[in-house]
């Protein structure tokens, strides 16, 4: 009995199986409209709607943070993140939220922000002014 072909077969089967199941972990960036219909966890990429309220009231609930995100279609939706408000949130250019639509808002359990390169601002400090 040759083992090598068997091992090769097992490897291929495992690879195919892993690839198929890993595909479930991946998805395209959804829009809020798609999130509305999907009823499962999706990732929405968009930008912070800076004219809408950004609410974080730690004295009432340190784990409740809400804001509005404008998705790729230009649709604005309220996002509720069950965590503390991150540093420099207002400066973010792009936001990716992971979660699902629930009760008319997007309930996020994770968020990634992209900020303009924070520390490499094209700025020359003049002595004594900093």
């Amino acid at each position, binding site marked *: 009995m040759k083992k090598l072909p068997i091992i090769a077969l097992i490897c291929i089967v495992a690879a195919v199986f892993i690839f198929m199941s890993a595909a479930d*972990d991946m998805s395209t960036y959804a829009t809020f409209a798609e999130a509305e219909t999907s009823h499962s966890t999706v990732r929405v990429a968009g930008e912070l709607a800076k004219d809408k309220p950004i609410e974080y009231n730690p004295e009432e609930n*340190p784990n409740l943070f809400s804001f509005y995100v404008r998705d790729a279609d230009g649709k604005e939706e309220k996002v509720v993140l069950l965590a*503390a408000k991150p540093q420099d949130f207002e400066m973010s250019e792009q936001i990716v939220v992971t979660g699902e639509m629930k009760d008319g808002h997007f309930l996020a359990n994770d968020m990634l922000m992209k*900020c303009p390169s924070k520390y490499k601002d094209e700025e*020359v400090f003049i002595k004594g002014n900093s």
Partner: protein
Amino acid sequence: MNEIQYVNEHLAAGALGRAAIVLAFVCAILSLVSGIYATQAQRKGEADNGWQRILGASFGIMGFSIIGIIVLLLTMMTNHWYEFQYVQQHVSDELPFRYVFTAFWEGQEGSFLLWLFWHSVLGGVIWFTGGKWRAPVLTVIASVQVVLLSMLLGVYLPFGENFRLGSSPFLLLREVMDIPIFNQADYVDLIDGTGLNPLLQNYWMIIHPPTLFLGFASTVVPFAYAIAALWIKEHKGWLTPVLRWSLFSGGILGIGILMGGAWAYEALNFGGYWAWDPVENTSLVPWLLIVAGIHTNLVARSTGYSIKATYIFYLLGFVAVLYSSFLTRSGVLGETSVHAFTEMGLENQLLFLVLAFFFLGLVFLAKRWKGIPAKDKEEAASSREFWMFLGSLVLLFSGGMILTSTSLPVFNKVADFFELGMDHLTINEPVAHYNKYQLWVGVFMGIFTAIAQYFRWKGRSTNSDNSQKLLFRIGASVIVSAVLAAITFKVLATNGWQFAVLAFAGYFAVFSNIDYLLASKVAVWQRIGSVSAHVGFGTMLIGILFSGLNQHQISKNTFAMDGLLGEEQIGKNVLIVKGLPMVINGYEVTYLSDSLNGNRRDYHIQYRELSKEGIIGNEFVLSPYALYTNDFAKVASMNPDTKHYWDHDVFTHITGLPPGAQSADLAKAFEDSLDYQRFPLAIGESTETKKHRLTLLEVNEQPTHPDYEPEPGDLALGLKVKLERLDFDTVQYAEPVVVLRENLVYSYPTQINPFSARIQVPEDAFSARFGAENKLDYRDAQLKPGESLQVGEYTFRFDEFDGEANHPNYKREEGDVAVNAKLSVLKNGAVIADMNPLFYIRANEPGQVKDFNVKHGLHARLAKIDPSTGSALIAVAVSDPAENVLLPIELAENASRNDWVVLEATVFPGINLFWIGTIMMLGGLLIAMGFRIAEKRKMKQNFSVSADTSSEVTSPYPTTRPELVG
């Protein structure tokens, strides 16, 4: 701009640096060319014609040029020569010296230099110890150096639209930017640096990058040996010398990665040592490949199997390092990584670097494939090599999966490039995704590691190893592991059965390897490297299980949201108010105080462990801190603090702060939102609002305030007030301060948190207190000593001149002529005050310093002196006595409290198992390397070889020699 003759620039240093880069680049090319000739001559057995010597010399000059470039750049940075862009962007006047190195390798150019430096050092070692391998191996390293050095050239090539080759670290700031300050010839003296990213101002960042880069750089050696062996068709001879290099590489690269994890755990706030961040992933993959290569290398050396696999692993290991460098430096990861990389505009060059060496390896391998020796017969299932090969395959699988998932943004970019019109793919929950698959990698690795140790090379059995005894040993190990896994499963209280399997694999790896060591017939020290590495691996798995699955939040606020949300959605953050102990999840947590320390604010949080009966156990204080940006405008990062116990860690960090502590902008917005009411009060007088009664108790001219640091020459006023709540019977005292320093007014308000009130002293308190000069009605008279001037009920008597000239507001300078007039002030015939106005002449200009008696509201000036008559022109005025003066106080009653923090606190049980396990594992690799080197020395002596040390290439070992490291 060209006409300006700039001063104080160090143009010569810049020119020297650029010249050194060109020199190094040219020498690298020369090494490459001479290396090719030297190797070809060596292959064909022809005369060398001095190519070797040219190779050595040019490689050496290149190495010393690189060291020179580094020394020069460091000199520029320590001397703050800000005319250079690299210096300006990475250091600043305030940056402590110890961080100059960190700043040096913060930038891409610096990290390339570090990489080049290590390549040169490793090349140097090979030159002196590599024997006949040195020419081909150095040739390959030189080819890498050529490409890497081209990244630093910074020259524009005439094809395309200004194609730039590399980016020089010696660019002048004014060559890069166009801002008005360059219109000034002395701009160099006016500018300061941007400084180092505060996140990197951590001791780990001094040591982690050089170690990691040594690890990255060291992967070039197995790669170079592989190419060299394919080139000179020595498919067996390279297996021995390369092994110690790949052990070194595995050990150092692993330690470098681990230090990154330690830095993340100690200094960053994502709460853990590993986050499956793309930057971490792409440094892990080369390590996995090198470790796989080490195993097939051992197999190949001892049995002749797996030579092709060894080639593939070592070639891929280095290409993976290059790919990692491409991913992290090109900005392609932008959308998935939290690491902020600045782009250098070298994407194409980086891509060329990856592809060039990938195809170099591929072409060599393809051309020589048929000639690589392989065994006809397959490995037996009862042989060690079979299981080691399987393990290597699992490592390859693991690396492939990690790399594929991490490369999603690259696939998206490629799809965009070819306009495939595909939507961008992303992984929904990266951490869960990686954990799910890598768990099984851990399981298989643990089990294979265990099984392989029970078998011998080529399935041999020795007399002592009768199969019954062997079965007993395996059985015992399996049973012990299974029992411990069951207990672990119980303790972890998880419902994922696969975790029990992983626990079993971990314990099995530990016990079988201990068994292997105990059953050892050869000296223990020969096996200690292997056993340490494998026991470490098993221990690491157990540590990951405990710290990952059993970590729990102290700060979990369970009752707040009970029933509203699912279990996993209960927040991790809790708000605690200064001085108010809060009992949460078995701990009493108290925010004791905070203190400003350089550009960080430490928050001292006390933890007291409570048993179910409420008895206080362990008690400790953690001080997580908010690190401010270099200009103090806002918080740059919230850094954690950790209490280490032998069996668990308590990790805490701040997740939220009151606006005033977060940033200057938010503090101002908060200040602006306050609704101040103004109350002019005399001392002892009260006033009432709807909620409070405010009383001015006393005025203090030497006030104290937590944020106020007195300086000489300050004029300060502190108003001590009492604030009472009308509805409760509670009283608070406060002393807001206002300070006049060099014509600027600084206000230090006081927050009364229990009342959500804030009190400040407006700036016109000064004129109220000291009398507005323009409202005073001065009367003057020319007086001789003994004469008086009457104002209302006060008599100002001029007693005498005093040459001592003392006055608290007067600072004597060289050449001053100054004199006091001593006055006595009488009321109803009694002296109530002495006054000493002062007159001085400085540089032919007359000046005067008035004296003021606050209590009675008396003002006196010495306006002029007439030396001929010995008289003085004295001007006096009277204002309200202090007790009648109304001092303005401002009270805001909508100032929400600012004495709280939001924090997250996590317990990591068994995290020390992870650290111990990884250290044992990586230490094991280095021990094995040390053993190999010692063995080489011994061989050299035994065989008393000739000077060219070529003996080790034609391996003197019998192929069936007993295993030493498995």
